[in-house]
């Protein structure tokens, strides 16, 4: 397979076909929790993009240069990756807090949420220890491939977050039946959105 085409497939697969939220059911908690306002959703999406890319990079390095050579990957990858993510998130939070208060106000509140965002771990694991998510594409990612893939995942997350936040903003003025107000209508919208995303299934054989 042509290199560029493979990158494209990886990216598209992560972004649409196996959309992390709607098709893979990962990162649903922030999807429901942080999508009541468009600005917040955008902030969250940016933070996730940033943290996710860093996490994948560090995980990839530690997997390929520490865990695999030592032969302990099989049972240590979960603690190691999540340790990396948690430490990274906390480190980034502290740095941002120091460097720029406005940036912290805008982004800081989402950072702790990201630690427990399934998507970061899932993307890191998938990119490093492929086969996790059962994509229809040959595995064994090089570092650039892992990063491209991760960016696809993060943008897929962002796209759906922003769509969803805009929809919820519009629903704010709608007379939704009382028992459906709040989260339930959110899930109904998610159901229909995921219905729409099913149209992309098997795109380009992915």
């Amino acid at each position, binding site marked *: 397979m042509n290199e560029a085409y493979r990158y494209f497939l990886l990216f598209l697969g992560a972004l649409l076909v196996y959309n992390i939220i709607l098709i893979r059911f990962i990162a649903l908690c922030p999807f429901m929790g942080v999508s009541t306002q468009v600005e917040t959703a955008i902030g969250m999406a940016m933070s996730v993009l940033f943290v996710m890319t860093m996490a994948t990079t560090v995980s990839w390095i530690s997997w390929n240069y520490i865990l695999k050579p030592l032969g302990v990957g*099989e049972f240590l990858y979960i603690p190691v990756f999540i340790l990396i993510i948690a430490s990274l998130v906390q480190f980034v939070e502290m740095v941002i807090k120091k460097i720029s208060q406005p940036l912290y106000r805008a982004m800081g509140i989402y950072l702790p949420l990201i630690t427990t965002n399934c998507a970061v771990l899932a993307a890191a694991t998938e990119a490093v220890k492929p086969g996790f998510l*059962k994509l229809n594409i040959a595995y064994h990612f090089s570092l650039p491939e892992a990063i491209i893939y991760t960016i696809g995942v993060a943008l897929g997350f962002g796209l759906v977050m922003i769509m969803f936040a805009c929809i919820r903003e519009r629903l704010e003025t709608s007379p939704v039946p009382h028992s459906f107000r709040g989260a339930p209508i959110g899930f109904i919208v998610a159901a229909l959105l995921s219905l729409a995303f099913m149209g992309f299934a*098997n795109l380009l054989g992915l």
Partner: protein
Amino acid sequence: MIERILRLGLTLLIVSIVAAVGLGLTYAVTKERIAKQKEAEEVKACIDALPEVKSPSELKEDKDLEKRMKKKVEGVMKVYTSKKGEVILVKARGYGGPINLAVGIGKDGKIQGVAVISHNETPGLGANLEKEEFLSQFKGKKNGDPLEIGKDVKPITGATVTTKAVLTDIKEALKAYSLFGR
């Protein structure tokens, strides 16, 4: 300040060491079983695919695939050999992800049976590939037989992609078999 840094580092270190030891132990305990389970699964599929083989001990994994086939065949993963025939494990792109099959081919070069190892197809649609009536159609086929959907093979209703993937798997297996230098 140094004291504080040390304290933080040490806490994390101690917890990690305890965790690492615990996990190492668990791994050590479960390792073999996991490996066995995995193999057992494959072997079970192989037995399903090659009904003449009665016990796992009759099967042997062929480690020297590349050499034997000379040419690479895309979807072929592994080959088990036995006195009764060979089982070829193949993988193709289905609708919801890869479809892994075990194709058992007898000494006569005809398919003896097909077994599903794993797949991720839609329940009610593609997942019907597990059904006996679909898989049994391939019995007796050999390399070079026309395998055309609608004519030679009855497709799974509403699941052309799955059907095609299974067909690809089978064709690859037959092709690989034909390449085996005997």
